């Protein structure tokens, strides 16, 4: 009797379906997270269902040997190798899509069963459960925590899993997707193109296979490189600037000929044409930077770019600021007049240069000049006492025209004695004064057409020396005023 039981057990084991349970990916733990607990639960349940499940250590060893770093998915070639090395018939790939351990606890899993000999997904299912989904009379037999939710989810997953897996297909799949690398995507005329073809199956006999690459009607034979274990076709990219389709012809004898579209490459010998547009304030037909300069670089015929560089050069062609990037040009650049070290660039003539490289490496550039003007307008004030009044002359001899000016004179008590404003200078005006001890203060405001502003306060114009002669006291006053000046207010 015992012998019969042992015999039955051995027979059952011999006919049991060989299944591999791959490590279950856990999306709740971020990219490439692992859930060993769910992996073990699935293994145990499958064993109870009568499957022969491959040992976990053998799966991990296989993954390490084949350098499979990602869990949750496996490509056809690796599935085939897994079948060859571990003798499995089916593969279970699982993923924990959602796991919430705070209330209400929730778990969502998806499972895929893949037939190993043709790498076909023959079944897939998903189960989701939240503790809030299960409401029973008086709360009886409701899951109380995540672990109990997990139990229910695994049971439900096994319920929806087919009891009898589809039979192994008669003709096992041998040739899986070839790896084809065509590079580069864009070339200059005359540069070398390469197409590499690697076969997925490990037992390919290169002598039995001939591989050729067809480009624009020309056939280029691919050579097998035993060390690299791939076929390679090399040819110079010649012909007019246009796109050339490439297909790979794989010949395994009269019966087995296959053409695969590998992609295309672009021959590009024309450098891109670029135009620059500077937007800022303008003066005498020249773009001027006071606060900000906007630079727009546009390709006449838009095409994808490999990289770009923008440089600001001073009058002696020294780079004061530079920036570069990969890919297409940004829509616009804004420069606030700061040098590479963060300090403000001095007033003067500058140029901006934008260079671009397209994907074939063709280079083009464009340069535009501009001027930096940040100097404040300087208004000169001269006083002269005549009889019972004081005469004030206000003058300006700067290069940048004034937009407006304003002057007000106030008595010692703060009462406004005179108020004047205008756009043009010089101007002369006078106010009466009775004695030398009287105090008359003067406030001058001005702004040039670029927006540079000046605000000057003279505490007492009565004590000013006539025709610009200054007392020591006035000099001190002036320096104090300069310190108090604000460039922008």
């Amino acid at each position, binding site marked *: 009797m015992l012998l019969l039981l042992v015999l039955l057990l051995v027979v059952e084991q011999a006919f049991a379906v060989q299944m591999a349970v791959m490590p279950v990916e856990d*999306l*709740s733990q*971020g*990219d490439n997270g692992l859930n060993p607990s769910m992996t073990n639960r699935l293994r145990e349940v499958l064993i109870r269902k009568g499957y022969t499940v491959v040992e976990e250590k053998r799966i991990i060893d296989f993954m390490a040997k084949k350098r499979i770093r*990602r869990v*949750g*998915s*496996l*490509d*056809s070639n*690796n*599935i085939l190798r897994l079948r060859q090395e571990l003798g499995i018939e089916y593969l279970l790939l699982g*993923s924990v*899509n*959602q796991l*919430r351990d*705070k*209330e*209400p606890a*929730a778990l*969502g899993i*998806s*499972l*895929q069963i*893949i037939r190993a000999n043709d*790498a*076909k*997904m*023959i*079944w*897939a*299912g*998903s189960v*989701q*459960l*939240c503790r*809030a*989904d299960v*409401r029973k009379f008086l709360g009886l037999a409701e899951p109380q925590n995540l672990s109990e939710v997990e139990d229910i989810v695994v049971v439900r997953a096994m319920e929806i899993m087919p009891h009898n897996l589809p039979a192994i297909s008669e003709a096992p799949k041998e040739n899986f*997707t*070839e*790896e*084809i*690398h065509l590079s580069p995507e864009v070339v200059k005329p005359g540069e070398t193109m390469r197409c590499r073809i690697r076969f997925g199956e490990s037992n390919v006999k290169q002598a039995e296979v001939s591989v050729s690459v067809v480009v624009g009607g020309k056939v280029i034979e691919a050579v097998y490189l035993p060390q690299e274990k791939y076929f390679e076709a090399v040819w110079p990219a010649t012909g007019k600037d246009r796109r050339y389709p490439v297909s790979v012809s794989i010949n395994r004898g009269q019966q087995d000929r296959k053409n*695969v*579209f*590998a*992609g*295309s490459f672009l021959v590009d010998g024309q450098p891109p044409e670029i135009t620059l547009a500077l937007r800022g304030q303008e003066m005498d037909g020249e773009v001027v930077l006071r606060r900000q300069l906007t630079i727009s670089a546009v390709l006449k015929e838009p095409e994808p770019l490999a990289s770009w560089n923008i440089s600001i050069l001073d009058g002696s062609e020294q780079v004061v600021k530079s920036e570069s990037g990969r890919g297409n040009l940004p829509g616009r650049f804004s420069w606030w007049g700061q040098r590479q070290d963060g300090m403000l660039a001095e007033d003067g003539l500058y140029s901006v240069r934008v260079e671009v490289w397209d994907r074939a490496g063709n280079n083009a550039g464009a340069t535009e000049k501009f001027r930096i003007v940040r100097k404040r307008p300087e208004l000169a004030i001269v006083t002269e006492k005549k009889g019972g009044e004081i005469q004030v002359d206000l003058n300006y001899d700067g290069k940048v025209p004034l937009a407006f000016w304003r002057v007000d004179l106030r008595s010692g008590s703060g009462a406004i004695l005179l108020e004047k404003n205008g756009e043009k200078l010089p101007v002369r005006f006078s106010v009466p004064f009775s004695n030398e001890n009287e105090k008359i203060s003067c406030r001058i405001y001005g702004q040039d057409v670029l927006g540079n502003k000046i605000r000057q306060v003279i505490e007492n114009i009565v004590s000013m020396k006539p025709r610009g002669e200054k007392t020591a006291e006035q000099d001190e006053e002036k320096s104090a005023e300069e310190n108090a000046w604000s460039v922008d207010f």
Partner: protein
Amino acid sequence: MVGGLLARKPGETGGKVFCRRTRDGEDVPWEKIMDERKKVFCVISGVTVFLWGMFALAGCGGQKPYVQEFAPKTSHEPQGIAVLPFADRSGYDQGAKIVYRLVLVELVKQCNWRVALEGDVFKIYRQMRLRPWDVPDVEQLRIIAVRLGVDTLIVGEVLEMDEKVTPSGVSPALSIQVRVYDGKSGLLQWSSLYRREGGDYQKMMHFGMVNTVSELGKKMVQEILGVWKEKGLLSCVDS
């Protein structure tokens, strides 16, 4: 209807009988008043049941996935389908991958379509130096289709994915866009846009309420595939 006078059953107030008196001065007997009351009660009950039924139905019906067709309708049996990695615009951690896996599962479950393995798709993306969130151009789509041996490509985007856990319950929301391309030409054939919330499936009390984004995603993908089949855009494989 019962008039201005209070109608009471005989004997309730010391045997004194109150009846309704009409404008003509006639007394309406007690039995007739009760008959009128029964009719009113039946009508109100009927209306209540009807409204409740309408609300219950509105919970499970109503919205359908929006489908925009770009190519002439050709009901074909796909030789193979590849689902390309979904792009995530929602900011939900692994949101694109969650929906991607659910689409894979439902494609295999709903019909016997041959669906390209996720590992093969990602391998070709690596070979073509495409990042998972990149949308391949027409030529790249053709190459992917040829190399995977499929004739239909599904590309998608997760536009919104959110799951608010409040003391009163969980409120998931999901919005996805799924586009279907022809593998031979690389051209867009049709596209679907769909947005749902967990509460949309509520029937009555807590029944039907969806409490997880993965459950919501599963239901939405099922509905999208259902509409595609209903419109004859995809047909199931017999074997």
